[in-house]
């Protein structure tokens, strides 16, 4: 399958080199050294830089990116220095509020997008692997589509449909679709829930959800299709002969077999949904303080507000998510290896 980034199989402990496969020792060490250098400069340095920059200004600067104290009410006459301090406090407070809003929007979008794409992934994988179909290769290419489309184009197609100047513009900009929003408050009950009324699809959360769905829908499907294909249909057929209906069939037979692949697909889909930038940039209009997700907010902080410490603070969240994704992936691989070994030993 094109573009499948399968990580190496159980054999990553390294092939046992036999005499004919041994390079001279100096070649080996040189190559290992070069590779270490490459990986350090290319990957380790940029990633640690994220955390160094975020925490380099001190822990309080880092937390102020998320929870800044509200500036005290200002007396009427302030000295220059006091006015400066007051302004900085107000600015930090507002920036932190925007950051929290971005986090809340990102989580909201992920909560909508990931289940939808999971359902699609399961449905598409079921359709394409359990039934013989003529248009199978067309479908597979279609599923691979978002990997070859620039994310800006993914956002653009929705602006074409739903923007004020687009095909459905007149309806789309006036439809009222609010959403629940939460914010962390300083006092009890510490969480504020509210209903945010809003209008429109572009510049509003439905646009972001649609664009993110477009970009992330293949992930679960691509994980499940080869997996379910390798597993074949015998077990399901056996279950049907034993009298299982559709739901029982899925829950007790298929789901059990695909659960690790499914979990991995969900994790990837989630990571990508939370980190998507290009498509969301186009549909959310990139207006400061309005409906941004975390990557959008990072870009605003960096280029429009030139606030590096805030940008890096948010970046640590996403980098942490990436680390978590990789960790879960390693664990899942270890699990799969274990279960394969069990099957082999049995």
């Amino acid at each position, binding site marked *: 399958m094109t*573009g499948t*980034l399968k*990580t*190496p199989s159980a054999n*990553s402990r*390294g092939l046992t080199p*036999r*005499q*004919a*496969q041994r390079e*001279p020792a100096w070649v080996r060490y040189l*190559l290992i050294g070069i*590779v270490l250098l*490459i*990986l350090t400069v*290319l*990957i380790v*340095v940029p*990633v640690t830089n994220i955390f160094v*920059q975020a925490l380099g200004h001190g822990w309080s600067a880092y937390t102020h990116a998320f929870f800044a104290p509200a500036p005290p009410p200002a007396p009427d006459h302030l000295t220059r220095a006091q006015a400066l301090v007051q302004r900085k406090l107000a600015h930090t407070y507002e920036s932190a509020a925007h950051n929290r809003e971005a986090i809340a929007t990102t989580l909201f979008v992920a909560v909508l997008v990931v289940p939808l794409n999971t*359902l*699609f992934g399961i*449905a598409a994988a*079921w*359709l394409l692997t359990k*039934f013989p179909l003529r248009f199978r290769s067309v479908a597979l290419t279609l599923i691979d589509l978002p*990997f*070859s489309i*620039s*994310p800006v*184009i993914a956002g*653009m*197609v929705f602006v*074409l*449909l739903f923007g004020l*100047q*687009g*095909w459905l513009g007149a309806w789309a900009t006036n439809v009222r679709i609010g959403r629940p929003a939460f914010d962390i408050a300083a006092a009890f009950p510490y969480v504020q829930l509210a209903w945010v009324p809003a209008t429109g699809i572009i510049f509003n959360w439905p646009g972001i959800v649609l664009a993110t*769905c477009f970009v992330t*829908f293949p992930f679960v499907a691509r994980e499940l299709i080869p997996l379910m294909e390798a597993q074949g*249909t015998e077990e*399901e*057929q056996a279950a049907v002969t034993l009298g299982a*209906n559709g739901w029982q069939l899925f829950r007790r037979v298929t789901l059990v077999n695909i659960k690790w692949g499914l979990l991995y697909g969900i994790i990837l889909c989630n990571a990508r949904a939370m*980190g998507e*930038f*290009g498509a969301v*940039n186009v549909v959310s209009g990139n207006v400061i303080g309005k409906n941004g997700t975390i990557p959008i907010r*990072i*870009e605003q902080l*960096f*280029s429009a507000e030139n606030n590096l410490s805030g*940008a*890096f603070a948010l*970046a640590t969240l*996403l*980098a942490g998510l*990436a680390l978590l994704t*990789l960790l879960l*992936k390693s664990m899942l691989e270890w699990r799969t290896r274990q279960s394969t070994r069990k099957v082999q030993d049995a």
Partner: protein
Amino acid sequence: MARARRILPGFGLSLGFSLTYLSLIVLIPLAACALKAATVSRADWYELLTSPRVQSALKVSFGTALVAALINAILGLLVAWVLVRYAFVGKRLLDALVDFPFALPTAVAGLTFADLFTANDFRTGWLARVWNPFVTAVLNAWNATLAPLGSTAGRLVRPDGWHWHLGPAWQDFFAGYASPTAIVIVLVFTGFPFVVRTLQPVLEELDPELEEAAACLGAGRWCTFRRVIFPMLLPAWLTGMALAFARGVGEYGSVIFVSGNLRYKTEIVPVLIYDELGEFRYAHATALAMILLVISFAILLCINLLSSWTRRFA
């Protein structure tokens, strides 16, 4: 033969849901895009394709993606070889690290590279402090070496005025920020896992007997690599390179942080599309998108063909 009854349930449901979802999310929006692009007249297409801004954007997009893919091809081969063939402390960790650019959101990647290469105070931009003097040194060495060849007289001055001397404009070209080099660096980062992960399975499944046979016949290691191993790796290597190239062409999030979006110098096609959308020239934007899509599909087709070639020889 009568139509076989489907044994397993759920055909209708899965077909219905998949088709509806795909239509709503993918097919209808893409159809709208194609329809809009169809409204562009031939004169407009010509004007678009010959406009200097579009041409330079295409050059930047495809040029940087190509260079990054080539660099990744070499780096990826090295890394895949070492990770598969050698055992050393921390190999598992490095193996997991290779996937980082794939898991890290592009905006974060762009942010950290932009920060590394813009020299500000002592805390930031320390890669710039290494990179910029290095570039200056290389350029000076180049100019100094070629100085005896003379500057005006001689064969090295072509009618179009090309000159061997690399002036300050080249310092900007190779700078780590707001230059095509910056784009290449960031594309090398984002495309890095593609080549490695495409090569690793193939490397693992290489039959050691072929190498042993080559050794028996008297081939040295380099000769064995060149004539026995590498040709077997070639399809996967090209596939990985094509994947990295395709990814690099469409890359937006990380590039806009480091490129400075200078028109005619570092503006990539997706930025141009975004600008055209912003100016409400929807037809132009979709026309550009179509150009990108057509080329991306062509690459996808090549990748598919390469994969089937690989399978034939596996």
